[in-house]
């Protein structure tokens, strides 16, 4: 399967950033391999993937801090591959804030504007405005080290946005924050994006964050784009086992596509909505834990039979496991409680069954699921 790009989604619209055939190696090890990605103006795009998959490297190439070995970077159709970072119309919020420790907050925020020789009263207004935007009014004269991690993060964002960039690159900006502050900042960032009309490219390895915040999610693994699409597409229609496994919890089971709209899993036949896979074709089947329905064992709707084996209370729901007669442990999320030991029948709606091709070659197996 060829890694898909976002190109298909916006053929009619203008791309702000266009990465074409980006390849990058460090010490002979290929980190990015022929990466293609278009990013539409005014969108919130998230690069999502496990640690070390090349997200930061991609961002650094867009920011100009790293040169690709092969491929071109286009900004509004202009080739900027060889343009230095200080001449690019974008700003970066670095993974560890990178505020200037010898300057106070006001001077940090003013840095970009002073470089551009803006008048001092304009700068003063901008600082005030930016501090208000990130909810830190009155912090002008504070020193960098007197701020908490979350506050420093917001200053880093303020320092970037006063320059009114067309594009803001954010590298795991919320990585160091606790859950509550994280959620607050997520809302703040979305608000900023809507208020300022800036295009965001956001890097994270937190799939929940990616799904909540973005217009488009780009799932990466080992230097390849595995899938790109809206959060709904990524979640509901994962294109391969890696994406299904990485995005949320899921049951990934081997199956055989008997014919269009009928798949056999563990000897039982499930109706589904996918077609075009051919007849008697081995496939991977993805079923989300919240889509497995638990029925009484004698319910005629039930397709598979099993015995409840495990239960954890998770607050908003119960996370349970059910061992079906062939030994597979199904992960099930439900608000109803079913005691371990109980005999049950399982049912899945046809529209909740997602069929994927098995990786065709060994090479694609290598970019697939990692345990």
């Amino acid at each position, binding site marked *: 399967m060829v890694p898909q790009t976002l190109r298909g989604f916006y053929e009619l619209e203008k791309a702000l950033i266009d990465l074409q055939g980006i390849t990058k190696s460090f010490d002979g090890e290929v980190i990015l391999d022929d990466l293609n990605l278009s990013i539409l103006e005014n969108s919130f795009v998230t690069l999502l993937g496990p640690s070390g998959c090349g997200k930061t490297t991609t961002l650094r190439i867009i*920011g100009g801090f790293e040169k690709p070995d092969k491929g071109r970077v286009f900004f509004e159709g202009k080739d900027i591959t060889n343009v230095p970072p*200080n001449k690019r119309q974008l700003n970066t919020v670095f993974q560890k804030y990178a505020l200037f420790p*010898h*300057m106070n907050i006001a001077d940090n925020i003013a840095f970009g504007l002073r*470089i551009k020789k803006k008048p001092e009263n304009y700068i003063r207004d901008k600082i005030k405005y930016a501090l208000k935007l990130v909810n830190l009014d009155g912090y002008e004269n504070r020193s960098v080290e007197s701020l908490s991690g979350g506050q420093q993060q917001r200053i880093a964002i303020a*320092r970037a946005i006063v320059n009114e960039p067309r594009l803001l690159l954010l590298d795991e900006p919320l990585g160091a924050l606790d859950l509550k502050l994280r959620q607050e900042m997520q809302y703040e960032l979305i608000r900023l994006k809507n208020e300022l009309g800036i295009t965001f490219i956001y890097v994270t390895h937190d799939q929940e964050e990616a799904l909540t915040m973005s217009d488009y999610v780009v799932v990466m693994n080992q230097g390849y784009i595995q899938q790109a699409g809206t959060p709904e597409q990524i979640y509901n229609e994962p294109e391969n086992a890696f994406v299904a496994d990485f995005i949320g919890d899921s049951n990934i089971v081997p199956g055989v596509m008997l014919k269009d709209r009928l798949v056999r899993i563990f000897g039982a036949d499930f109706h589904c909505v996918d077609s075009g896979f051919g007849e008697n074709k081995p496939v991977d089947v993805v079923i989300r834990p919240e889509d497995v329905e638990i029925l009484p064992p004698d319910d005629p709707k039930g397709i598979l039979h099993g015995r409840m084996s495990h239960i954890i209370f998770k607050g908003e729901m119960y996370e349970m496991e059910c061992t079906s007669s062939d030994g597979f442990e199904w992960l099930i999320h439900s608000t109803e409680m079913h005691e371990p030991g109980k005999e049950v029948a399982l049912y899945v709606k046809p529209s909740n069954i997602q069929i994927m091709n098995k990786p065709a070659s060994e090479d694609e197996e290598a970019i697939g699921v990692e345990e």
Partner: protein
Amino acid sequence: MKSKGTRYLALPYIVWMCGFIVIPLLLVLYYGLTDRSGTFTFDNVRKIMLAENFRPLYLAMGLSAVSTLLCFLIAFPLALILRSRKVGKGSFVAFLFILPMWMNSLLRILAWQTLLERKGVINGILSSLHLPEQHLINTPAAIVLGMVYDFLPFMILPIYNTLIKIDDNTINAAYDLGAGFRETLLRIILPLSVPGIVSGVTMVFVPTLTTFAISNMLGGGKVFLIGNVIEQEFMLNSNWNLGSGLSLILMVFIIMSMALLSRYDNGEDAIL
């Protein structure tokens, strides 16, 4: 748990300090403020006003200021280059610059003496090329050369140490916000390396101001620095009182310049 014993752990150190720092200092103070018969006087200190003592002080300050400046101008770019290297290669280059520090400094100056002498290596090469011989040794320039050569590592090392502590992304952030190399250097890198510059300047300025060995060997008794004057009073004229009096003056100058420097160290961006 603080036992009584721990209080006495510092004792050897305190004894050492008293024996080899405090007592000698008090002795200098005593000799400097008395005459031969032991009566209190300011005469020794006041003799700095004599031209024969004042000029060497003046010259020493000038030469060591020039040497310190030259050391800084050479060391800072070098330290920057060292910083930008990858660790493996960088450490070898750093090693090359630190290597001379392991060699006796007098030995290194002696090497320069042989190079610069009237019949030395450089003039030997010049005359074999039928070029006119140069008057190299026994000039202030030769002394500055010796000072810079001798103390350059002491400038590079502290600056390099502060430079490698600057996060790459702090510098990248400056570029990202539109700053070119010059602006990044002046507004970010230089202010952040002030602590290293201050200790580098201290480690070069103080020893070059007080040296008499370098001026003896490369000045041939023709260029007289305050260190030479003090040495002469102690060793040649056996006038410990005058030698101590002049040392006190020199100490005051050093303390004053250190106080001036420490102001920059605190208000870090004051240097701009």
